[in-house]
């Protein structure tokens, strides 16, 4: 693509928009975590151990980052069947991550830390819950990509949509790592 080469050192506008969107989402979580910091410094803050299943979900989402990274590579080499397998695997890992998080919620409830309990627990439900929504957004995107890969009428050779989805996936992964470290340290 000769016309693309002129644009080689310029980032694709969709990728650029994604970076701004990620900045925006980050601001939202900064809003949550700063609210957490403010509340923590006030009276009646009750601290507790995070559910241990959160560490398993961390391993799951890290694995999914690896699979989507491989998927982008397969797409670029036009190994479409491997690509489809890998994005399906990524989506399944995303759902598995969500299940782990919800099991974590169940664990918290069992330890008498419900949503309307101490505010330190409420924060976990809200912050982790909003993060789950972002992961599920990524799962929906992957399903769209999956359906698109089966289209015969229009074939997409541009790797931009795949790369955009992968970047977003790595982002929600990193976001979770940040939240986990934050919530473990600032108890």
């Amino acid at each position, binding site marked *: 693509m000769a016309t*693309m080469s002129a*644009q080689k050192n310029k980032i694709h506008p*969709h990728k650029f*928009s994604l970076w701004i969107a990620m900045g*925006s989402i980050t601001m939202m979580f900064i*809003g*949550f975590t700063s*609210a957490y910091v403010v509340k923590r410094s006030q009276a009646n803050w009750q601290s507790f151990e995070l559910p241990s299943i959160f560490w398993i979900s961390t391993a799951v989402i890290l694995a999914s980052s690896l699979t989507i990274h491989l998927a982008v590579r397969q797409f670029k080499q036009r190994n479409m069947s491997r690509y489809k397998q890998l994005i399906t695997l990524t989506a399944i890992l995303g759902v598995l991550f969500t299940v782990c998080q919800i099991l974590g919620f169940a664990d918290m409830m069992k330890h008498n830390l419900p949503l309307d309990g101490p*505010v330190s627990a*409420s924060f976990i439900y809200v912050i982790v819950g909003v993060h789950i929504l972002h992961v599920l957004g990524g799962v929906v995107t992957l399903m769209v990509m999956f359906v698109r890969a089966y289209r015969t009428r229009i074939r997409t050779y541009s790797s931009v949509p795949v790369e955009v989805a992968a970047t977003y996936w790595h982002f929600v992964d990193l976001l979770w790592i940040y939240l986990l470290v934050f919530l473990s340290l600032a108890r």
Partner: protein
Amino acid sequence: MSNEATLHGQHEVIHHGDDHHGNGHDHDHHHEQSFISKYVFSMDHKMIAKQFLITGIIWAIIGALFSVLFRLQLGYPDATFPWLESILGHWAEGGRITPQAYYALVTMHGTILVFFVLTAGLSGTFSNFLIPLQVGARDMASPFMNMLSYWFFFMASMVMMASFFVQTGPASGGWTAYPPLSALGDASIGSKIGMDLWLVSMALFVVSQLLGGLNYISTILNLRTKGMSMTKMPLTIWSFFFTAVLGVLSFPVLLSGFILLLFDRHGGTSFYLSELFVKGKVLPNEGGSAILYQHLFWFLGHPEVYIIILPAMGMVSEVLAINSRKPIFGYLAMVGSMFAIAILAFLVWAHHMFVTGLNPFLGAFFVLLTLLIAVPSAIKVFNWITTIWKGNIRFTPGSLFSIGFVSTFISGGLTGIWLGNSSIDIHLHDTYFVIAHFHIVMGVSAFFGMFAAIYHWFPKMYGRYLNQTIGFIHFWITMAGAYLIFWPMHYEGMAGMPRRYFDYSGWESFKMFTELNQFISFVVIIVFATQLLFVFNFFYSIFKGRKVTTTNPWQATTLEWTTPINPGHGNWPGEIPEVHRWPYDYSKDGKDFIPQTVPVSADESAH
């Protein structure tokens, strides 16, 4: 070469949109568009801009009408208006607005004007319309997301509109929706379903702003035509850029505040609630902090006022330079001061909270940072005045409104210096002085910037002119009216008259203002009628206005005037023009103006 690349990059974007939706509008081979794809689900930035503008105008009429209704109560607290009962039903029993309805009207007036009119209607309209036209792009970076941005705004509008018709009425705890009033359904009837609809509507609105903002930033940074370096951009584009950055960084924080509020309302959590008695019952919530909400709210809320005023500043700069036939004075100082304002916008939020028990030591820093904003603001005012100084001024309605903007920005800005001091704020907080300050500096000024832009770019939008005579009547009555309404409020505020009260006639201290309040309400009605005249002019001129016969009616230098009179989707029928010079070459080397597309000749000094 890079122009070619931009062109093709753009091609790809449009095709991409087509892939999704199949309502093809490729600019190379025109074929008839259906009504739906041209006027309703349009992906043309110019049509989306018009959708934002007309929706904004409808909201402005509703929001202004609400202010007329509550001004009737404030000006004539003892009078009854039987027609009020016919339109408001049990909210105005016996022809007098009930206290509950009064609070709902005040809350909705604020919400509508701040968010739906001066954010979506102002920056939504002109960022959409001018960014691709002035940077030389065929459309936005993602026309599809741009369309979604409008439809999220439309959904937000519908939800907000629906809340007017629920049995318990719309939200009525003030446009800032402070808890605990906004968090407890039992606290007031306006805190029931109306408050939920308000939160849903605002969440949709935030999504709309984010989708729009992403596109504006991405388009400005990535899709400029060949030769359009950042320092060759018109100041309008710089202002839209800073506006979008502010929105993208501050709206998500507001959303997180709203999410926590929703959980307090329905999840039984105690983020904002603590030790409360409602209706004689003790609530189980403990350990919450209502101040936390105020921090999250004002972290958006303060940048929000710059989201409102920056686009107006940029467009006024452009209109003033064109209509005084002089280059803008201090282009880089203008950009620099907008940058300074954008940075400081994030560092001053707590000046809304001086009387919440904020640590006075911390308050001192917020005072300092707040007063610092006076510096870039003063630079901008100085530059606007020096731009028109000894200029060959054309008094069009657009330029009159721009000059009016500078006037109201000065007089409203000066009172900000008083309010920004934490010690004076103890007396002035929540009085009519605050109302006077922010209405002049943010409300009236932003409206003047918007009017200036509408009068100036209407020929590009619709290929016709607005009627000038009606424009002059509109300007002079609005200008005089704005000062007559808000100037006296300073005195009321200094006398300690609190805002948001339903009826002041019960207080001996405020009896001296009875006639003044009547006077203000009377002027409000006249000014409102004048705005309806403008709305008539707007819609009449779309169909019957004088036709534009030349592509560049104002003899301006920027790229939007190099497009055909009625540009199609894609803006330029042929190649996108290349840019060779900055946008303010007016009265240079004996020439009245030199468009940006003219190469710098050998015997000419580049700017």
